[in-house]
């Protein structure tokens, strides 16, 4: 999904600020009672779904029965299909994301540390960032074919833009007097970077990682829909073409769960990082 979260937030002058919620969760914490109420709607939906399909209100080709979806899910878990396709997708995301994030981190640091580099690179970078990741796929397909390389590159591109922009913005946001302190302490350049600049930019970089991961995940589904023989996105295409709505729904749920786990994992990592930051201060 592209790059644009950052573009948008930078347009409002708030890169990495918590004003922009992006795809992050709505606040919802008031204990068990609330959780129970929150379950009412899904339970009712499933109940309605079950009733509707067993009474034939909803034709099967529009929505298969929940029991059928459940059976399919169990079958696919037991047969290892889910693990195989999810594994393929995750592997692609990990590789692609790592490449993209590393590149974004380096580029963002260069842009954040040096005005000159920023002046040279930013306009071209922003121009490229305007094009949704999905738009790049056919072009990259012509160059790299439909193999594994294409997938990794597309996913990396998804991570690159938010990582670069947030890293640069984070480094820029480190107050000049902190750097002065470092100078007073006669820190070497590397020390200044490691002990002052990077910790100061950590929050923003983290935001970049989060958006980067979300964008990578969406890019993955996109590229697997277009050209792939395995992975969760492929499962979607496969189910669609064979008219297996149960498989489609199972794939959607797995995609949702993976997204959820990544999100939550991120919240945990971030709060851990914050604690560590506070502990150090």
């Amino acid at each position, binding site marked *: 999904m592209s790059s644009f979260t950052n573009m948008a937030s930078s347009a409002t002058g708030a890169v990495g600020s918590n004003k922009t919620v992006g795809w992050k969760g709505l606040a919802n914490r008031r204990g068990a009672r609330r959780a129970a109420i929150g379950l009412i709607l899904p339970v009712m939906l499933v109940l309605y779904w079950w009733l509707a399909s067993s009474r034939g209100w909803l*034709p*099967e*080709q*529009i929505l298969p029965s929940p029991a059928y979806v459940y059976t399919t899910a169990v079958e696919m878990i037991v047969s290892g299909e889910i693990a195989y396709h999810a594994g393929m997708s995750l592997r692609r995301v990990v590789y692609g994301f790592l490449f993209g994030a590393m590149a974004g981190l380096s580029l963002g640091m260069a842009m954040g540390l040096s005005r000159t580099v920023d002046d040279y690179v930013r306009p071209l970078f922003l121009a490229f960032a305007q094009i949704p990741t999905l738009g790049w796929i056919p072009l990259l397909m*012509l160059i790299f*074919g*439909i*193999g594994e390389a294409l997938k990794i590159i597309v996913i990396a591109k998804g991570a690159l833009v938010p990582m670069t922009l947030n890293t640069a913005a984070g480094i820029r946001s480190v107050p000049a007097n902190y750097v002065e302190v470092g100078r007073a302490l006669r820190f070497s350049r590397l020390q200044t970077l490691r002990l002052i600049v990077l910790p100061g930019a950590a929050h923003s970089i983290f935001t970049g990682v989060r958006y980067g991961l979300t964008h990578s995940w969406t890019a993955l589904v996109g590229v697997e829909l277009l*050209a792939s*023989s395995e992975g969760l996105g*492929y499962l979607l*295409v*496969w189910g*669609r*073409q*064979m*008219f*297996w*709505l149960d498989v489609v729904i199972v794939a959607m749920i797995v995609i949702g769960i993976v997204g959820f786990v990544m999100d939550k994992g991120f919240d945990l990592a971030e709060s851990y990082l914050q604690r560590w930051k506070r502990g150090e201060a």
Partner: protein
Amino acid sequence: MFSTILRRTALAVFTVSLLAAPARAAEPLTIHVGYAAIGVDNRPFAEGTSAATARAGEYLEKEFANDPNIKIEWFFFKGAGPAVNEGFSNDQLDFAYQGDLPALIGRANGLKTRFLLASGARKPLYLAVAKDADIKSVADLKGKKVAYQRGTNGHLSAIKILEANGLSEKDIQVINLDSAGTVAALTSQDIDAAFGDTQLINLAAKGNAKVIYTTKGQDPRYGRNAGIIARQDFIEKHPEITQRVVDAFVKAAQWSSDEPNRAALFELWHKSGTPVPILEDYFSNDTLAYRNSPLIDGLLVSQYQEQGVKAKAFGLIRREVSTDGWFEPKYLKASLEKLGLQNFWQAYGADGKPAGS
């Protein structure tokens, strides 16, 4: 407390859902006809079937030329047969040309359709390999990247060919591509081989691929079938219109089966973007009447039954699918009588031999 807002919200949601509700066909009637393929560069035309003739020759439009209230709208699907099923499940299509596997998949999933007449029922399938690939026979496909479009009649036919050569889908790397995507991938040698028809002959003619196998002239059981499918609701609601639509398709089939029309026929199909010489090749050694027969004969019925069994055995359909009561030859029979064509086409028995009358 916020009941006013709630009420207004409900109203807004209701209005929006009304706007988003599927547009129902109102008077005057528009007949929506789907075609499970699309021309070169997405031209809204096709080739190789009597349905393609009906489209390019405007047989349906002419049939209803004197009924200003009835309009014909054609839809061509890059997503082929599976996309036609999506159209049927939304009542967006009334008639469609569709291959055997997707029609059976639709039926297995509860789509209420009927099979009215055959069209393009004896289309062969070709296997082409990339220009530099070292693949000489079907058996050499083992472990190779092979493209076809999943869920189409070519898919089932491809599996049957693989099976006959001791392979299964698991022994190859299946790349799911539509016709245009196959051409691109085979040209750039991203894949090793592909199953398909005219697009592959065309590619081979340009020297960008080699055709190494075809079901043409082989046992018809390796081939694939197709026909005109209609939505049951539509038939029940408009039996006379259905009859006239079938009449038009039968007339198109007749014209497409007349040998003197061979050159004109290919010229007409050329609207799809497929070059005439390719079509000549595609139809070489076949009589037009054999390929364009609309008959629901013993061979066709047994073929569909067998395809259903095979599809289940290969795991393409996960429930038994029965073709009982699905074929609706009534309209075809009436057309043949009306047009005096009862003996125009040779019927074949389930054994593939001409049936005695």
